[in-house]
């Protein structure tokens, strides 16, 4: 167990150190969510006046919830890019050779994604609050909101890691990014689910991201989050993609790293 922790810590340290000391990685991770937040919350704010838009904390808070989950998910996708790059340039073999239990490498990458997400979310939250966003929830709601962000980050990282461990090339980037992008944007991004119509509403209704986003919005507004739906969906996504990533790791091991 001690060696497991040492390997996990080493993988986490290296990826986080690289992330924090290289502006080419750090800045886009922060700028993209801020851009989305500014563009959506600012440019589309009149959507909050549409009849039937009943989110009590206002449109800025409504969009903040999307950006929160989007930043969490994309932190995972970018971590997947890093895994694929490590395999492509051979660095992963160094990690494989140093790890008694190679699952520790995967856990290290997961911690990296969570750290990245935490840094980005801090910045986005501070900017949102400075920009006048209303947060009507209590301390428990803050915890619930952060827990959902962590779960989305974990699920996205595990999904992207599974792709990266199978493809072992950065050329698999679109295969990591596109499904996450589609899942996020086919949820109720701009307006509540009830205001969507046609096939978009049908897809959004069955999209597993939708209950997570609605629960996040409920936490921010201090409303009643549908935990009975969001919790099993969140757990299911993490378990499903954990199995996907672990099988990917076994495949990478069988292929020689």
């Amino acid at each position, binding site marked *: 167990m*001690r*060696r497991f922790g*040492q*390997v996990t*810590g*080493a993988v986490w*340290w*290296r990826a986080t*150190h*690289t992330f924090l*000391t*290289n502006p080419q990685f750090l800045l886009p991770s922060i700028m993209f969510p801020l851009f989305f937040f500014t563009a959506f919350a600012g440019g589309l704010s009149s959507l909050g006046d549409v009849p039937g838009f009943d989110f009590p904390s206002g449109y800025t808070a409504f969009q903040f919830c999307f950006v929160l989950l989007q930043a969490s998910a994309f932190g995972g996708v970018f971590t997947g890019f890093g895994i694929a790059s490590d395999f492509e*340039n*051979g*660095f*992963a*073999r*160094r*990690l*494989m*050779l*140093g*790890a*008694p*239990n190679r699952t520790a490498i995967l856990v290290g990458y997961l911690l990296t994604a969570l750290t990245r997400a935490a840094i980005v979310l801090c910045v986005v939250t501070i900017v949102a609050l400075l920009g006048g966003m209303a947060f009507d929830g209590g301390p428990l709601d803050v915890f619930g909101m952060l827990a959902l962000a962590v779960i989305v980050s974990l699920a996205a990282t595990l999904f992207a890691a599974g792709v990266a461990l199978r493809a072992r090339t950065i050329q698999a980037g679109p295969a990591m990014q596109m499904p996450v992008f589609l899942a996020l944007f086919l949820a109720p991004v701009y307006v509540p689910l009830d205001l969507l119509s046609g096939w978009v509403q049908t897809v959004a209704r069955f999209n597993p991201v939708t209950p997570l986003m609605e629960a996040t919005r409920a936490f921010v507004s201090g409303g009643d989050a549908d935990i009975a739906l969001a919790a099993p969906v969140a757990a299911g996504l993490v378990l499903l993609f954990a199995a996907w990533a672990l099988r990917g790791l076994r495949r990478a*091991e*069988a*292929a*020689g*790293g």
Partner: protein
Amino acid sequence: MTSDDNGIEVGGLVRDFKKGPRAVDGIDLSVAPGEIYGFLGPNGAGKSTTVLMLTTLLPPTDGTARVAGHDIRREGARVRAAIGVALQEAALDPLLTGREHMRLQTALQGVPRRERAARGDELLTRMGLADAAGRRVGGYSGGMKRRLDLALALVHRPRVLFLDEPTTGLDPSSRSELWREVARLAREDGVTVFLTTQYLEEADVLADRVGIIEAGRLVAEGAPETLKAQIGRPALEVVPRDALQRDALAEVLERFGSAAAAPPHAAAVRLSRGNDALADVVRALDAAGIAIADFQLHAPSLDDVFLAKTGKQLVSGEEPDEQAPADRVTEPVAS
């Protein structure tokens, strides 16, 4: 073999790939503790695949192997704890400094926290990288990267060291430095070294024993001097003053032994009577009216061993470049 052994025992090791020929085809070999074993062969012969299997990076299709007393299939973690590995392409992060690499590697290998910095600095100094320790590796030369890779392979004081073509792409000076360090590790620290190379000189200089691999099979094995002695006879290479007399020259030489590989403008013979035939060769050439521009007597080399064992010549002795040619095997001029 006990778990305290530093040796390597391989039996019938096989590796198949789905879309390709059998990369390793039933290799048996044994490396004694503290020995430097040179694994010699051209690109694509199966050297690197063998190393990947012995270092637990690639599962074998069949066969058995024990490294440092541990089974590579069932005791992968113990094997990894006992070995140090520097693979063909130095696995370095261009965005980390040399010292940061040491920090990462010491943590990965479980070196106690209080010893990590000192161990890293010690190895960086030993490899001549102390001055560059704070620089990002992306700015290192090829030789510096190789030395750093070797330093990283040593952080946990491995009992067995695998070096996969460690000097490919290095200039002669860097090669010599690396050879000295590898030799020191084996002689002074008792580390067993399994070294793959496509450079005959490297195997000749460094290895206590050499295994020659061709198309996934071990075709010869032994001490370099023993292998050369098996070939036994020296080769005489003669350059005629008149290039048009090359064929006539070759005819005369063949009276004294079997033809050997030679450059296009020359002819060569492996003297069946050894050096005793030299005077007779000169007299025969004189009698045939063939003027000689140059002639050289070559003692048997590993190149000759390779030629004798595989029927091919392993090009060697040229300046290695960063991108090694895909095919270093050439058919002999004459056989």
